[in-house]
């Protein structure tokens, strides 16, 4: 027959991306077909297959010879045409999230370069699937160690006892959460993957020469709009209420109340005015007093 007609189906067959390896439906029949991958094994399948197989929970990969358990949430669209690149980018991202030191964290540039070398080795081991078990273990150990270090540092912060109880409570809650988070890897862990790390929590794992000690950021002080300044009267104490006839009208005036006017503002204002300058003697001259004011 004519060449173009023969080429059509063969073309579709040669590009395996156009036919779902699971249900064999092709883009030729369904224009809107979308292919998804799972970073667990990078096997490609169509969206409707993913919906059908994984909607009810984790299931093994339907591709022959692959027994990995996949979850629906992890499925996503392919970003790179070459799946090898896709995988490498994923691995690099994962490694970079754990090994997040910068040059400033090291004593010397040499130490930093050594660190980068180690990280690159780990990355390539994972990419090339060399010694995966041991490398993965290293990665996890280091991650756990980092987490523990930061949490312990955060925990050593003792809240100022003079702080209002609100803040203190928040700090307590926080440290409780930290304790729980720390307890997880050592105690009974729900994640079987980290089983290898069990009991080895105290083991140092990876160590880098010349790495500076982690210093947690200083805790944020509660916001003070007056920057530490306050008025502390020495001659009077403002009461919450004063029972004087000429005030009753103002106190009960809906215009005052509705506007949110607080009579205590007036009381403290009036009393402050009453004694502002009580201990100031103009006839003494100002120069001596100015010295201790400014």
């Amino acid at each position: 027959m004519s060449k173009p007609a023969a080429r059509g189906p063969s073309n579709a067959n040669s590009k395996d991306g156009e036919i779902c390896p699971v249900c064999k439906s092709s883009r030729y029949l369904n224009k809107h077909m979308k292919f998804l991958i799972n970073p667990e094994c990078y096997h490609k399948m169509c969206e409707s297959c993913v919906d059908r197989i994984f909607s009810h929970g984790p299931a093994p990969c339907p591709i022959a010879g692959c027994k990995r358990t996949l979850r629906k949430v992890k499925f996503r669209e392919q970003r790179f045409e070459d799946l090898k690149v896709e995988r490498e980018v994923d691995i690099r991202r994962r490694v970079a999230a754990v090994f997040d030191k910068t040059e400033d964290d090291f004593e010397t540039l040499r130490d930093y370069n050594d660190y980068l070398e180690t990280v690159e080795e780990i990355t390539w081991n994972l990419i090339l699937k060399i010694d995966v078990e041991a490398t993965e273990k290293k990665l996890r150990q280091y991650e756990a160690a980092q987490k523990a270090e930061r949490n312990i540092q955060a925990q050593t912060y003792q809240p100022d006892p003079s702080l209002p109880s609100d803040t203190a409570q928040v700090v307590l809650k926080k440290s409780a959460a930290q304790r729980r988070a720390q307890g997880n890897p050592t105690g009974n862990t729900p994640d079987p993957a980290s089983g290898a790390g069990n009991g080895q929590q105290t083991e140092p794992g990876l160590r880098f020469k010349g790495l500076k000690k982690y210093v947690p950021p200083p805790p944020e002080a509660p916001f003070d709009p007056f920057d530490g300044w306050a008025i502390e009267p020495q001659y009077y104490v403002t009461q919450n209420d004063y029972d004087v006839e000429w005030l009753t009208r103002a106190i009960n005036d809906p215009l005052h109340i509705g506007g949110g006017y607080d009579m205590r503002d007036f009381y403290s204002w009036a009393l402050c005015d009453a004694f502002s300058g009580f201990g100031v003697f103009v006839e003494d001259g100002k120069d001596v007093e100015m010295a201790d004011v400014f």
Partner: protein
Amino acid sequence: MKLTEDDIYRRSTQYLHWSFTAAQLAAQRLKTNIQAAERVKAAVARQRAARALKTETPNASGSENASQNGANTPLPPPDREVDCLTMAEEKRLVDNFCEKALELGDFLKLPIEVTATGVQFMRRFYLLNSPMTYEPNQISRTAIFIASKAEGHHLPVAHYAASLPKTKPEDILAPEYLITQALRFHYEVRHPFRGLKGGHLEMMAMAAGKATLPPNIPQDRDPRALQQAMLELPRRPGGPASAMSEKELEKRITEAYGFASHILKNAALLTDAYFLYTPSHIWLSAHLLADEPLTLLYLSTKCPPSNPMHAKLLTTLRSCAALLSSHHSFHPASQTEEEKAARDKKDQVELKALMKKLRLCRDPDKTNLVKLNQAQKRDAVENGELEENKRKKRKIAREQYEKEADDFFGPSLSKKENENAS
């Protein structure tokens, strides 16, 4: 950092720039008086010289011309030294004009804070200027207008001018900048009115036996004992102890408040109290005049006699009270109506003489403030028209500038549109 009430006052402009010892105040007034007198004499001499020149050149009869020139401004008869006001006379006049300003505020039904601030502005102004230089009547109207703005009391200038006899808005606005400058842009005046209210609140709380006493002042009294002490207060200093009911005590405190308030609204404003004492001392002094035993008891809860400041405080309050009671608006119970009337009449006569004297020694350069104010602005208008060649010159300069700008940036868009439209 902790601030006390006293620190707050020490940071106010009233304390930093407008508080003086009696000696400093007198020295400042003397300086102002001497400078103003010299200016007046110089200005009058200059005017006389100009007039003499005029009378000589047209070769007319000297006496006729002189009277014509002097018709619009009252001038002292020639060839006599100008008789300037003395420092004391100046102060007397300013006090009198302040009193008139107070009456004006009453007449216009302005809140007392506005009038009081205006009066203090006037007093501050005349510390640096003399009534010989600037007419107190003109200044007082504007001072009150500025005060209405400083105190947040909306008073439109047109409305204000209309409520005054023979006054145009320009008359109000002309000396405005002059006064602001003399005030050194310090608009805040700290009055003792609110302080008096605060003290009154506390005394009422004490009378009810519910007062909270400051913790840092050693006190062996509890609120109940304090109330008892108040109930037994003698009616007058040194008198026998009384036994009042709580109602009577409250009435006594309220009466003292009314009396003190009257002093603060009159004598305190019309004397140098604001320059010499702090608002706290002023209201306490007024209260001392109103009810001495009560005030002394109240003071002992703030500053007990064991405190080293106590003696000094009392001396200060007594001298302030003496100043307040020396004012003629204060009438002690000992003074009879006839005595007061006689004193007022004497004051009136003296003031009339002073006013006459002032009219003869005014600085002729500063009579028309509206004109002076206009002259300070750009394009001072002389007889309603700019000088012809000046206007021409300015027009050419403007066109030249516009042309240069157009050459560089291109003609402005709106201008182009306008040209097209026309």
